């Protein structure tokens, strides 16, 4: 098993630059260095919202968790957000154990995330008026 990382920019009006990163395969001790390297351009990039689509991620170990958490931290440092969508149950279980979820926004799907963001936007506007 190996890991493949696909990065594609999503032009999503209203939310600012958004990047979609698809992780497919295993994010473990062996593949974490590769994953970290391939995600780095997104971390350094202009995206305000970085979405990790984990639909194809079958396995994650502590080394993989460290990549996710490191990404979240680096993004937060420049005011960007990390979102996880399509998290498989076995991955969710691991994320839950290490209590990593509170720091990361997790959604079932891209649609759910869009709805959430729209809601947040609405609240900000209402609060401002």
């Amino acid at each position, binding site marked *: 098993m190996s890991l493949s990382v696909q990065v594609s920019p999503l032009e999503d009006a209203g939310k600012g630059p958004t990047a979609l990163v698809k992780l497919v395969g295993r994010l473990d*001790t062996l593949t974490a260095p590769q994953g970290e390297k391939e995600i780095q351009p997104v971390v350094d990039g202009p995206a305000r919202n970085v979405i990790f689509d984990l639909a194809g991620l079958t*396995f994650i*170990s*502590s080394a993989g*968790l*460290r990549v996710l958490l490191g990404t979240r931290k680096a993004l937060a440092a420049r005011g960007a957000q990390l979102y996880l969508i399509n998290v498989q149950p076995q991955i969710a279980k691991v994320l839950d*154990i*290490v209590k990593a979820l509170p720091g990361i926004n997790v959604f079932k799907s891209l649609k759910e995330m869009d709805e959430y963001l729209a809601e947040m936007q609405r609240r900000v506007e209402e609060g401002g008026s």
Partner: protein
Amino acid sequence: MPLRSLRSLTPKLIAVVLGGCLTVYLAILVVSARAAREMLVDGAQNEARAVATGVSYRIAGALGVAEGPPRRVAAFVAREPHAERRTLENLLRAMIDSSPGLFGAAAAFEPFAFDPARRTFAPYCYRQGESLGMKDLGEGSYDYFGWDWYRQPRERRRPQWSEPYFDVGGGNVLMMTYSVPILRDDRFVGVATADIALDWLQRFMDERRVEHGGYAFLISSSGRLVTHPDRGLVMSRTFANLAAATGDPSLREAARQMAAGGAAFVRTRDLVTGARAFMDYRPMPLEGWSVAVVLPEKELLADAGRLERRLGLLAVLGAGALALVVVLVARSITRPLVRLAGATREVAAGRLDAELPDVSSRDEVGQLNASFREMQVALQQHVEEVKRQAAASERLSSELRIAREIQVALVPKASELSVERLRWDVFGVLEPAQDVGGDLFDILPRGESELVFAIGDVSGKGIPAALYMAVANTIFKAAARELQHPDQILGRVNRELLAEGGANMFVTMLCGVLDTRSGRGSLSSGGHTFPVLVPRTAPPRLLTECAGTVLGVSEEIAFQRIDLRLDPGDSLLLYTDGVTEAEDPARRFYGEERLLAEIAGEAGGEARDLVEGLLRSVTGFAHGSPPADDIAILALRRPLEPGEPRAIRLRSDLAEIARADEWLQAVCRELDVSAEAGHDLQLALEEVLANVVRHGYGEKAAGEIEVRAWAQGDAFRLEVRDRARRFNLLEQDPPPLDDDVDGREAGGLGVHLVRQLMDRIEYAYEEGENRLVLERRRTA
């Protein structure tokens, strides 16, 4: 061959042949033209020289006539100092009278030399129409002492010709005077002269017309033109002046040379017209005079030009005729080629019976045509042959396809092989050869715990073999249900095959029956390759005692039965001779030794690994060439007891985690571990191994890790043993989870995961070994 290139052959030939010929011809033309010019110029030079010489002599002769009388007068006066005036005048008159060339004659004296009473005395007799006149030049104002004709002979004391001059008094005739000094006792007393009119000189010169429009002219000692076709120039201009006026350096040089008495034949310009001309000049026998002959170049070389034009015309006509010949020759070569090319295209387009041009010549074109005709015939035959073969091969390949379909349909699918109910690990493959060898295998569960299995190889190939195999298989299936022992089953198959009356076919077959609970059973062989017993902990061995006679040959055969026992983890490997008789490129057999060596490495492994490993080894041995015979391999492995530990040994290397992972997944399948539990165990094992490699041995160090797994009731236990430094996972502090995880000690997070995912963790350090046991329920 494109037609265009053939057509371009003609112009190419013309260009080459004509180009060559014209070059040679042009060279000849240039050389001959130059030679002709040289000859013409040489001729002109000779002619000019002849004219000039002729003119010189003629004029010298004419002048010589005029020189006699004054000499005689001078001699007379010198001899007769007291001669009468009348005597002198008579002498003069007689001289004119007797010399038609003379115009006049005089005797002029020094003051008082002839007559002491007269200062000047110069009687002059001259022609006046038909008669002669006489006068005294010394009369009146005519003071002759300063005149050249008197002064110069007096000074030089020798006879002398004067410059030509126009006699103004005597009818405007060009004259010259010859003066002879009269010396008496070496004392100068006067001169005797004779005048000659030069009007004949011009006529004479005009008559000396040179060929090619040339002409001659004379130049006097003062450089004046004495005669010239252009009368206006005569006596009025000097050669040097005219030469300077033309601005031509060669002409000026000629003028200089002439004045110095030189002679030459030069290429220069015409004095008057300025046109290019040749000129021969040479001194006359008259002091200071020169004669020149001019030959205009244009006229002179007109002949050469005519010759050149004629040669040029000849070249053009010759070239035209040559071109015509070349075209005809080229046509005669290319026409058959063009037609042949057309025929070639037709052949290339598939019309193999295209008609070839009828070329009867025996040259290269004819040979080409003949070989093409041979090729055409050969091609037709070849195509017929290929068609025949293609039809045959199609028939064959569809037969083989059917045979293969029959064969594949009869062999149990991989999914049917697991024999779930009996929990045995069974795997088989069939790789049909190109022309289908009729291999088969089958495995049937029977009763509560029995497996009946067989592998066979039909002699022959193709559909007959496949059908024979189908029959054998059907008989086997029926017999396996009814008969207890493999020898009985083979006996039934043998008899029924003979009853079916297979046309000269037979089959080797190996049959076995095993009780899955005890691992006990028996095997019988009908001439098949020896089965291999693959014990979990000992080297594999061929069961050579399992032998017998092939089926379908004789009814009178009793099959032997040997007992067999498989312990947990042991495998039985059956195969057909497609394995052992596989050949490498050097035509060596794969053989039984290689087989044993190969599967020794797979001992204790799953049936699938055993079979696929062997198949890979065989195809690798054949270097990818397709198998000459079917390859069938079947493996049956008695699973370990759930509580019996399965083990794998790993090197201390992160890359080994992948291997451990595969092993663990296989064990989980075998021990009915749920997907979620399997995932948890997988994650835990990875974290533990990563810890041992990184923190136990340290990433660079060499070390061994042994992992064992077994079931204990409902639990799955995983034991990791290493001889690295003492390292207790349980003593690790739980990570501060609410905090930032970056920069956290690498172990912490993983250890935390292991603790959370596992139901129990035990650690012991015994005999220099870290022993970590993880336990997890087998179900979720």
